[in-house]
């Protein structure tokens, strides 16, 4: 599900959970075990051909939620969100530079994972999206505040309100990604970037990061509460049901 390798001060975190690195309970537990200690730079990538990460495991969310009473479900979702926030905050505030190497689909929670990193390197096949509103939700892993700190508010609104995906070139123009490379070359480019950053004095790198990278703590909390408030509504449960039960070539997304 997750493999890590520390070499020459660069920690590589490889996501490899079929079909699309969906973030459910198992993936979360694996992420929580990632130890950033000893690294001078971090590269996060997916070794799956299909893409980086499709986001939260909606099938697990739907099926687990159905088996629970409303109060139990609320608590379960809140606990899950707190844990994923804790991991993403740790990644966001890590005292070393971090790079996400992405390709294919970077959707929902997958985009939120990439946004917690300092830099994003994308190959030309990449598409970024926040499809949550299509299911009656907002991103819940901290995606809105983190996207807002990197790109104009107009693009945040565009992505959120339409649920559409944008390609790597558009993301580069908007400042969401730092580098766009040929298909299949994102990890190579991210490794080169991490190796460069790992050369520098760690204390200086950590100080520079603390100085320049804002951490939107309050907004992250507010987004989580908004997600939880919206999640309980029947419209969301119905949208999740349609999404999970849809067997067509394109999943249900209004």
């Amino acid at each position, binding site marked *: 599900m997750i493999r890590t390798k520390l070499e020459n001060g660069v920690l590589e975190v490889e996501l490899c959970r079929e079909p699309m690195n969906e973030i459910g309970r198992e993936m979360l537990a694996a992420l929580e075990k990632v130890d950033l200690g000893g690294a001078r730079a971090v590269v996060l990538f997916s070794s799956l051909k299909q893409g980086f990460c499709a986001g939260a495991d909606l099938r697990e969310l739907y099926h687990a939620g159905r088996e629970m009473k409303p109060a139990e479900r609320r608590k379960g979702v809140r606990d899950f969100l707190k844990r994923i926030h804790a991991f993403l905050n740790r990644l966001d505030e890590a005292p070393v530079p971090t790079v996400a190497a992405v390709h294919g689909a970077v959707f929902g929670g997958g985009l939120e994972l990439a946004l917690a990193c300092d830099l994003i390197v994308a190959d030309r096949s990449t598409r970024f999206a926040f499809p949550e509103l299509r299911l009656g939700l907002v991103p819940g892993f901290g995606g809105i505040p983190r996207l807002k700190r990197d790109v104009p508010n107009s693009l945040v609104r565009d992505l959120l309100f339409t649920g559409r995906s*944008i390609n790597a070139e558009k993301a580069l123009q908007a400042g969401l990604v730092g580098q766009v490379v040929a298909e299949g070359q994102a990890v190579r480019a991210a490794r080169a970037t991490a190796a460069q950053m790992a050369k520098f004095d760690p204390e200086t790198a950590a100080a520079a990061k603390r100085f320049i990278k804002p951490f939107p703590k309050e907004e992250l909390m507010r987004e989580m509460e908004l997600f939880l408030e919206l999640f309980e509504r029947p419209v969301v449960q119905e949208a999740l049901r349609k999404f999970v039960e849809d067997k067509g*070539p*394109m999943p249900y997304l209004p």
Partner: protein
Amino acid sequence: MRTQEQTENELLDLAAAHFKVDRKKLRPEDDIFQKLGIDSLQALELLTKLERHFGVELPDYELQGVSDFRTLAERIHVRL
């Protein structure tokens, strides 16, 4: 300036080349998913290829409900 027929032909050429399907077997009225045998992730790949080839942005919602190449070519053409 491209005609709609040219857009249609370029779309069919591109889809055939990318998904390694015999170009001669693709017709504008064919169902894209059935003919190419693709899933939603591969549809995203096609979307990216089309945006890059034609130099346009194609919002996903413009493609909802589009099942045949001709309609897809129309959606692209109006953005050229």
